[in-house]
Structure formats: C-alpha cells, structure tokens
C-alpha cells in the first residue's frame, strides 16, 4: 500500500538554510545539501527547498544549489520560490529538480499551470495554495505574499482548476494554522482530498506527532509537510514514523 509521506521543508536564502539549527554530525550547519542528505538518511520521504531570497540578483545562485542537491540527495525533492515562467522551471529541471512548486505566479497567470504541465508533465508541477479561512463569509480565501494579500480566488474552486489544468499535486497551507502548532486544517484537507483525484500535501500547524496522525486519518492527506518542528528537533523523523506505524498508518 502507498505510504503516507513526511516532508521536511527547508527555507533557503543566498544558498544557505535559514533555520539551520544545531544538528550533530553535520559539518556545515547551514548547508542545504548536508541537511537534505541528513533528512534523507533519517527517513524523510521527500524534501522541499523554498528559495526565499528577496532579490532577483541573489536568486541566480539557486540553480547551482539545486544541482548540488540533485547530486547529493537520494530521494525526490521539490524546489520553489520565484518561479514565474517556463524558462525558470526549465533551468531547475535541467539542474536536477524532480518537481517545482508554483504559488503566486499561478494565481496571477493560471495558464502557467497548463503550460508547465504540457511542457514538463504533471508529475513535475506542484501548485502551492496559501489560503485563509474567513469567519464572516465562511470561505477559504486564497492569499499571496505569505498570506498578506487576499485574492479573488477560493480554495476549493482554485484547487479544482489547477487539477484540471494539469497540476500533479497540491500543497495546501492554511494561514490560520501555520506557525500555531495546534494541528493541521483537517476539515478543509479532507474536503480537498475527497473532491480531488491528485495527491494533497498538508502544510501548516504541525506541533506534535498526534497532529500527523490526525492529518492522515481525519484530514485524509497524502503527505504532511513541516519545517521548524524538524529543524529544531522537536520531533525526530524516525520517532514520528514509528508512532504513525503503531497507530496503523502506512509509512515507509
């Protein structure tokens, strides 16, 4: 049976991991390649590298880093951040990325999802959706710029649209849950997972191991993504896998 996936997410700035914390056995703490290889060895099922570099000029170093990750890491990885046209994706594909993640550029230009899927195949295209639940309207509003800017789009219709346009996976981050560490947005996730036929990666809200059990059972997610709880060693991946296995969830 297909296993539920655990995915650490690494933020990259100027070729270094931003939340590089004190990992033993890693020579250069901030080196994304070493950190990626460490997570792979710990049992991470995939990795996501998000380039949060601010300026276009600094971002030019990212493909070199992707090339080094592809050489050093023996599990699949997704890269995202600043991808706004086919050319950007093509460079990252050639550098060895297994998938790219697009977010605000897809909201601005939905045709980009179709073009990416047509040119590189659906398996290469992850559409990241940041959404915030609005109590007043009772709707999930798609946001951009790290949740600061609301858009006209709504979570479920936008998710369906990107699936129809050929996205291979959806990475859904609940801005209400992100950073709060009180669990994932399981209700919305379950609706997404049931209504769509492509895999759903859940992001935002992981604080303890139980939250992963819930996101796979109640939230019906295919994968759970988290950053700080792994980077700060609040949860070790081998422990998490064992916990999930003991709770009847198929993990690698």
């Amino acid at each position, binding site marked *: 049976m297909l296993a539920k996936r655990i995915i650490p997410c690494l933020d990259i700035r100027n070729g270094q991991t931003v939340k590089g914390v004190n990992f033993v056995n890693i020579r250069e703490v901030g080196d994304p390649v070493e950190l990626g290889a460490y997570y792979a060895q710990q049992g991470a099922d995939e990795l996501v590298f998000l380039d949060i570099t601010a300026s276009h000029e600094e971002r030019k170093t990212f493909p070199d880093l992707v090339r080094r990750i592809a050489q050093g890491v023996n599990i699949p990885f997704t890269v995202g951040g600043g991808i706004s046209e086919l050319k950007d994706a093509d460079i990252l594909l050639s550098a060895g990325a297994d998938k790219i993640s697009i977010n605000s550029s897809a909201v601005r230009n939905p045709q980009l999802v179709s073009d990416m899927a047509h040119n590189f195949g659906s*398996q290469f295209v992850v559409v990241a959706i940041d959404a915030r639940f609005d109590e007043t309207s009772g709707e999930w509003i798609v946001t951009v710029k790290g949740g600061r800017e609301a858009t006209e789009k709504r979570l479920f219709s936008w998710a369906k649209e990107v699936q129809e346009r050929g996205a291979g996976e959806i990475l859904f981050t609940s801005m209400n849950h992100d950073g709060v560490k009180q669990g994932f947005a399981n209700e919305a996730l379950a609706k997404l997972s049931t209504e769509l036929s492509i895999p759903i990666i859940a992001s935002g809200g992981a604080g303890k191991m139980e939250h992963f059990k819930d996101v796979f059972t109640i939230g019906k997610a295919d994968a759970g993504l988290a950053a700080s709880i792994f980077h700060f060693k609040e949860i070790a991946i081998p422990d998490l896998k064992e916990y999930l296995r003991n709770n009847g969830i198929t993990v690698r």
Partner: protein
Amino acid sequence: MQIAIVKYNAGNIRSVSNALERIGCRDVHITDDIAALQSADKVIFPGVGEASTTMKHLRSTGLDKVILGLKQPVLGICLGMQLMCNHSEEGDVDCLGIFPVNVRRFILPTPNPDNLKIPQMGWNTINNLKQPLFSPELEGKFVYFVHSYYAELCEYTASITHHTLDYSSSLHKDNFYATQFHPEKSGSVGETILRNFIAL
C-alpha cells in the same frame, strides 16, 4: 564498466547519472550515439513523459531498433519500462514489444474508501521479488513511484506492487530488465537495486 544512459527527449535523465555516481560508477555516459550504446557494458533507458510522443521520437531517430537489438543488460525505468511493453493506453501507441504485456491507465475504485489517487505518487512496496535484479532482503521494501499508467501482470513480472490492483512494478526477460519505480530516487533500497543491475 561502461554504463550508457539513453539520451532522448525524456525528462530528468541527469538524476540517473547522479545516482550512479553516488554508488561509485565512474564511467557513465548520457548518449544517443549508436556505437556507444551498443558497446557499453550496461545500458539504462530512463524516461519521464508521455508515451506516444516519446515512441514517435524513438522511431524517428531509429533508437527503437537500437534498443531492441541490444545484447547486454538493459534497465528501463518508469516510462522507459512502459515503452518496452507491447502497447500503451497513453496516446494509444504500439511500443517496443520486448515484454508481451499492455500498459493501462489506473482507474480509481468507486467508492474509494482509502482515498487512492492518480497519479500514484510516493513510496510503495515491492513484493514477490525475482532475482537477480532483486536480492532477497529487498522483499517488501518501499521504493518511489510516480505514474498514472501500469503494466499488467505476466510471466515476466519480477515484482508486484498494489495500487488499486496488483500490477508489474518490474519486469525481466532475457537481458531486458525494467522498473516502474525510480531506483535513482529510492534511497538506499534503490541504490542496492542499481548495484545489483551493475553487477549482472
């Protein structure tokens, strides 16, 4: 030990050479040169993409006949494996016909209580393994898959995986080996499988 990776219009070929380099292979070439492919000790036929477009490309370049005529161990990966089968539903195309089996699209069950998805994306187990590509300790291990189409079971099935149904997650006939999963992305298990292939 010379290893040739078939170069054609099919996705992330670099990841295969990266994996071979990680396990210590020094003499790896990505090439579409016929003589180089024929003289290599091992040939790997990778691939990510759409079946009918890729078959057309192979036919127009003559690579189809070259692959069919190879005598050394050949390993097809993912789309490479599907193209070594008889026929694919993806683009309704006749393929190389090395394995007498058809490639079909997954159909989700109704109802779908386990929330299975298409494509199958992620780690699944390989079972009922056949040597020599698979050493016994690999039975039931997880490897990485990304695909919407599958090869049916047949007498050449070298491993079985379950996603909506049991299918051939690898095939073996004579000098031709093939895996639906990506050994180059399957961690240490994938590295063992690549080493087994190199040792053939």
